[in-house]
């Protein structure tokens, strides 16, 4: 399988601190892959590299055959790399529908003048955008909340709204940063099906950062493990489960040796 988004030999240094050290990583087309590791392993830093928020000290990020390492975040997003946030970052005082429509910014063509004049082309475009936003809210299962303020939604609905908003970018890759944080086991298992639906129905490749091992093992086709900025393992869920270095990273040396 060819890869849609790949990071090659990424190194990130903050001052003297090496946050990510020479990590290479692929997201195969229409694949579901996970990035795991203990706290402080550099997962979110790596995410921020992929979305252009940080620039790597060295290394390249390739998306759909093009180098995007130096692009500004909004261009990377518009090109089709969408993300959600570990701590939900919705536009609180905007409605759910408006939140989704913000992410359509790069697809819409309306200019200042056409908006003020309310030209037919602009109105048509707005109507289509409204419909698309509603369809996306239905897709993630919160169609009823379209007119509610994002900050008034329940926690679970906010998580779903973040996904709907990311999907409005019409992405080819979706990066989910700890999407099940704060969910109970039942909600988490619903989420696993949801991730599969996004991939199967929208044809989007997915990368997850996740702490819930049950979710990771169930949903991922491939797992990459980071520890202290280094890639220590990569493989199928079964391989990762059996990998002594991974067990060591998570549970400490003594336990790893005992197995």
């Amino acid at each position, binding site marked *: 399988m060819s890869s849609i988004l790949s990071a090659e030999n990424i190194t990130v240094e903050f001052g003297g601190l090496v946050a990510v050290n020479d990590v290479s990583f692929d997201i195969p087309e229409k694949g579901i892959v996970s990035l795991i590791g203990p706290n402080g392993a550099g997962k979110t830093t790596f995410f921020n590299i992929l*979305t252009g*928020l940080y620039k790597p000290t060295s290394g390249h990020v390739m998306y759909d055959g093009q180098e995007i390492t130096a692009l*500004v*975040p*909004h261009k990377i*997003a*518009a090109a089709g790399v*969408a*993300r959600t*946030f570990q701590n939900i*970052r*919705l*536009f*609180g*005082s*905007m*409605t759910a*529908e*408006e939140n989704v*429509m*913000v*992410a*359509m*910014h*790069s697809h*819409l063509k*309306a200019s*200042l003048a056409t*908006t*003020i004049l*309310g030209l037919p082309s*602009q109105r048509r475009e*707005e109507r289509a955008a*409204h419909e698309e936003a*509603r369809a996306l809210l*239905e897709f993630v299962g919160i*169609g*009823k*909340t*379209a*007119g*509610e*303020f994002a900050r008034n939604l*329940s926690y679970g*609905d906010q998580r779903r709204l973040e996904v709907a*908003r*990311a999907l*409005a*970018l019409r992405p080819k890759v979706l990066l989910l940063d700890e999407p099940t944080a704060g969910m109970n086991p039942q909600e988490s298992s619903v989420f696993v099906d949801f991730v599969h639906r996004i991939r199967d129905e929208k044809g989007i490749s997915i990368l997850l950062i996740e702490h819930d091992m049950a979710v990771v093992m169930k949903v991922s086709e491939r797992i990459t493990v980071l520890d202290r900025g280094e890639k220590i393992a990569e493989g199928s869920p079964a391989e990762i489960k059996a990998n002594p270095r991974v067990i060591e990273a998570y549970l400490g040396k003594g336990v790893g040796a005992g197995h």
Partner: protein
Amino acid sequence: MAISFLKRGEKKQKQSASARKWAISLTLIALAIWAFFTYFFDKTPDAVQSWFQVWLPPSTINESLVWVICALGLNIVVGYAGLLDLGFVAFWAFGGYTAGWFMSGFFHQVNIHFGSMSAKVIPGIHLSFWLVMIIAALIAGFFGIIIGAPTLRLKSDYLALVTLGFGEIIPQVFTNGENIGGFNLSNGTKGISPIDAIGVFGKRLGPFDLGWKFLIYFFLAACMVFVSLRIRGGRLGRAWLAIREDELAASMMGVPLMRTKLTAYAVGAFSGGIGGAVYATHVNGIFAERFNFSISIILLAMVVLGGMGNVWGVIIGALLMAWINATGLPAIGDTFNNTFHTAINFPSYNFLLFGGILVLMMLFKRDGILPEARLKMISHENDDEAANTGGH
């Protein structure tokens, strides 16, 4: 699915219906005020007339509308895009001086007339009020972009500082602009006056045609409302609000930060320019010392007091504070002094009052008199209930 589509349709209608209700009521009130002052005022008893002269003179009403125009412009920058601008007076000054340059005998070396009602023999540049308005808006907008381009990269606190400086520098340039390499840019502290009368429908509006000016100012304020609402409802308005809410998340959703912020700043400056030109026709002249820091702060207070981001709230805030500033405080002070035989200079306390209002608002009613959210809640009430009972 079908149900939610239906609901959405209703909601949309309700929202625009609420805007229409506001627009119609305000227009009716304005027309009533106009009709009253134009046709009935002279026929009312002297007591009523003198009451109005003390508490609500026509010139204060007109001045309030000028403030409304500017406050709506600042609302785009502060209320929509969340960029704290403490130097809005600079754009007001640009607009005012544009009117000074192109609607008076100031440039007496030349004799250019275009669409103006003033006599052809008078030297100077005399352009039509409407044309000057556009030029003022373009000049202010142009400087808005020039100043915004480097400064909008700054984080909010620093942006506030830079705009603060800018709001001090521009009026200083005009105050001292009497002799810039031998060129008289602004006539210094003497100012430029008089400004040409506005010509409308072949009628020449002198300093005392307050009724007509009221209609013109009201028309311009209405245009500002229309433009604000249109932009707010579209692609750009959503991007502005998103930046106000969470800049980083907005950029991650494909919103180009610099360009979007710059547009907000330019549109705000544009309206500031219009406001400045209108103000020049209202006071019939340009005086450098009037363009001071307090104007920026009063405008900001209007936006905050009314409810950031909500045009109707900002209008109410602007009318209220403009009235207090121009008439309310002196009138209350005189009444108080006469009743209690004191000699307190009330108008000198207006900044204490405005500062106090701002602090109290921040403490007790941070969203302003008419917050945007509240208004929406009201117009969505039924839908929210439906969603709450049916959902979670």
